[in-house]
Structures are given as structure tokens and as C-alpha cells.
């Protein structure tokens, strides 16, 4: 177990004199800077998503990116004459990424400072040495998982889903029903462990304890008969979101203990966490044991506490920031109507 540092999940590129040579509005931008294309491709391979924040004419800049064959690599590009911090803020909120998990690459010290004033914890780099930047610890990923390689496509599907949701008038649950979501809950196998480790490292807001586990610890847990270790995959009409949730239950003699509940922030509005909780209550009912849940308060995971409490859990023990909660309802929770669950 350890804590995760501020790993970069999203790189936001400036264009003029950062991604390409020269200033587009002054006739520059004819060629990419040395190493820029390689950096974009390598970040994509690592599952680090990318966007653009640039002061430029939007249509001209997008045309130039397309000319380089790079337009698909950048999600929700923010290209306008507005302050750069506004564009960066828009990217962070659209992609649901915290400032400390994002990096700005911009040759201008003025722009980096302007953005850092708005987001003090955001990483920033001048981009002079792109290969050196990619070698920094915050840009490393432990493994290249299938989910990482598909991440850009998943974010694109998320953006399409978000705009459909904004256009939808009516109840949020009715919108979820239109997605035809299928949730598959299955035992964690060795083949899943890299993704499991990635989920524990990348997820902070929807992590019930903030624990992270090493590959070897996870391997042991997946083989230990005292544990019920589940991973879930989510697909819907917009595409495959990949493996998005984890549930670790300790099957003790007198209680089923929920040790870990993690849900990828990308799917937080789609009922996945609730579904895993429902699953845990159903499992406890089947085993005829009370369901206990550990919760360790961190800087970010209050949403988990609220989820537990409003699902009918009650505190039974309190030790500083560490709580033990018990499911206090007579009936297990049924899955939501809008989810087609296989388990």
C-alpha cells in the first residue's frame, strides 16, 4: 500500500512555438517542433489524454492540426483569444480532471504564470525538452493496459454522451435508461491486475479508503479464498467504457467486510458505484452475514461517504478519520432499472 503522487492524466498543449514552429497568425506553423509528434503519440500510447489551449484563430489552428494529421489526438481543444486559464478550466471540467493531474506545456512564461495563478497545483513545462519531459516521474505509467490504449476513444464517447445528456430534458434516470447500459461484474483474474492497479492509482474521488495496492498485493488478494474480489466493465450505446469499478469484500466469519470500493471518475454519473454497493448487499444477504464497510476519509472522497450514508449505512465505529459502517437496512438493495447487470 502507498500513496499515489500527482500523476499527469492530461496534457494541455500550447500551439505556437510549443507544438509547432513559429506563430501561426504571423505566417509560422509550417512545421512541427522536433520531437512534438513523437511526444503526442507516446502520451497517447500511455493513456494520457491531450488537449489544446491556444490563443489563435480557432478555424485556422484546427486546419493546421488536421494538416499534421494530429487533430484526433486532442479532446475538446480550447482555441480562442480569451485568457488561457479559462480554456484550461473548461478542459478540466469537461474531462473531469483535477488540476494536479493535468500539465500545461507552453513556451510562454507569461501564459504558464497566468494559468498557475488560477490553478496553483497544475503542472507546467516550457516544452523545450519534450523527450526529457516524458521521462519525468509524473508522466510514467506502470503498465500500458488495454484501457489506457483505448482511453482517448473512451473520452470521445464520454463527450458525445455528455452532450446528449445536456440536450436531454427530463429526469436523469430516464436519460440513463436511453443509454442501454450493460454492467458486467466478474471475479478479478490475473489478466485484470494491471488495470486493477491502474484504477487504484488513478482514482481518488471515488475511492472508499484511498488505499493503493501493489501488483503483488493484488495478485495475493485475487488468489486468497477469504476475499471476494470483483471488477466491473461497463458498455452502452456510445461504446465500451472498459473496466471501471472494483469491489473487494473480505468474507469473514461473522461479517462480510467491504474493504475497497473504487469507481472510475469517468463514469461517476452512471450509477456504477451504487450498483457495486447493491451487489455487496445482495452478497451479504446470500451469505446471511451483516455487511460492514471501511471508510477512510481523504481530501477527495467525501462523495463515497455520502453514497454509503444515503444508501442506508450507519456508523458503528469511529477512529479519527477511519470509520466502520454497517448496512442497516433489512432488505438488500436491488439494481437500478436502467442497468442491465450480469454477475
Amino acid at each position, binding site marked *: 500500500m502507498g500513496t499515489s503522487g500527482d500523476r499527469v492524466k492530461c496534457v494541455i498543449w500550447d500551439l505556437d512555438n510549443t507544438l509547432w514552429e513559429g506563430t501561426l497568425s504571423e505566417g509560422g506553423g509550417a512545421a512541427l517542433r522536433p520531437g512534438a509528434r513523437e511526444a503526442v503519440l507516446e502520451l497517447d500510447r500511455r493513456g494520457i489524454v491531450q488537449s489544446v489551449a491556444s490563443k489563435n484563430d480557432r478555424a485556422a489552428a484546427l486546419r493546421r492540426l488536421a494538416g499534421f494529421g494530429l487533430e484526433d489526438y486532442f479532446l475538446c481543444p480550447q482555441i480562442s483569444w480569451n485568457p488561457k486559464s479559462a480554456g484550461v478550466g473548461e478542459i478540466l471540467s469537461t474531462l473531469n480532471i483535477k488540476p494536479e493531474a493535468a500539465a500545461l506545456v507552453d513556451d510562454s512564461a507569461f501564459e504558464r504564470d497566468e494559468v498557475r495563478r488560477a490553478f496553483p497545483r497544475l503542472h507546467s513545462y516550457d516544452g523545450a525538452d519534450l523527450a526529457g519531459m516524458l521521462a519525468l516521474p509524473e508522466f510514467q505509467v506502470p503498465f500500458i493496459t488495454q484501457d489506457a490504449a483505448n482511453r482517448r476513444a473512451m473520452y470521445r464517447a464520454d463527450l458525445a454522451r455528455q452532450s446528449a445528456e445536456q440536450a436531454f430534458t427530463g429526469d436523469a*434516470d430516464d436519460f440513463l435508461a436511453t443509454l442501454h447500459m450493460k454492467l458486467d461484474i466478474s471475479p478479478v483474474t490475473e489478466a485484470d491486475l494491471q488495470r486493477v492497479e491502474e484504477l487504484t492509482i488513478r482514482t481518488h474521488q471515488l475511492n472508499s479508503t484511498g488505499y493503493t495496492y501493489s501488483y503483488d498485493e493484488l495478485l495475493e488478494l485475487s488468489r486468497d479464498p477469504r476475499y471476494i474480489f470483483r471488477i466491473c466493465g461497463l458498455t452502452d450505446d456510445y461504446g465500451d467504457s472498459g473496466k471501471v469499478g472494483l469491489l473487494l469484500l473480505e468474507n469473514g466469519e461473522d461479517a462480510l467486510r467491504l474493504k475497497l470500493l473504487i469507481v472510475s471518475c469517468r463514469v461517476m454519473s452512471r*450509477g456504477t458505484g*451504487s450498483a457495486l454497493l447493491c451487489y455487496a448487499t445482495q452478497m451479504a444477504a446470500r451469505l446471511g452475514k451483516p455487511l460492514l464497510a471501511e471508510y477512510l476519509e481523504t481530501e477527495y472522497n467525501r462523495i463515497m461517504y*455520502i453514497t454509503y450514508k444515503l*444508501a442506508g449505512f450507519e456508523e458503528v465505529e469511529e477512529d479519527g478519520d477511519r470509520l466502520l459502517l454497517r448496512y442497516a437496512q433489512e432488505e438488500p438493495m436491488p439494481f437500478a432499472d436502467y442497468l442491465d447487470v450480469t454477475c
Partner: protein
Amino acid sequence: MDTREQIFQFFVDKKKADGLTYDTELLKSRHINSLFALQIVMFVEKQFQVKLSRKEISVENFHSINAIAALVDRHLGRQEGQ
């Protein structure tokens, strides 16, 4: 608008509110996902400028609009009394 009318309006804006009353069992009548649970708590804290303690986030305090309104009013009353 009084406290419960403001909370009612929040539900009307966010959820299908057909047949919703101040006493409707919110947590049983409809599956509340983690995002909506969070939205309710955030809304209450922002709208009424209160900070709910861990203990106050409970099924009892959120089971109906009346219950949420009572929680808010207790909070505001206590603050005024200080």
C-alpha cells in the same frame, strides 16, 4: 420561498417530480445514485450556506423533503442563536 419550497424546486428541476410531495420517501421511492446523493448534499450546503457534519448526512435527515428542510432549519436556527 421557504426552505422546503426551495428544496422541492431543486427536485423539480433535476428529477421527474410527478406525485412528489414534501413527505415522499426519497430514498425508497427512487433509486438515488451516488451522483444525485452528492448533488442533494451540495445543493443544501450551497443554497443555505451550511456545512453539514458527517453525523448529519443520514437516511433520517434525507428521507423526505420535510426532513431535509427540518435539518436546514435546525442548522440556521442554531447559527442565529449563537
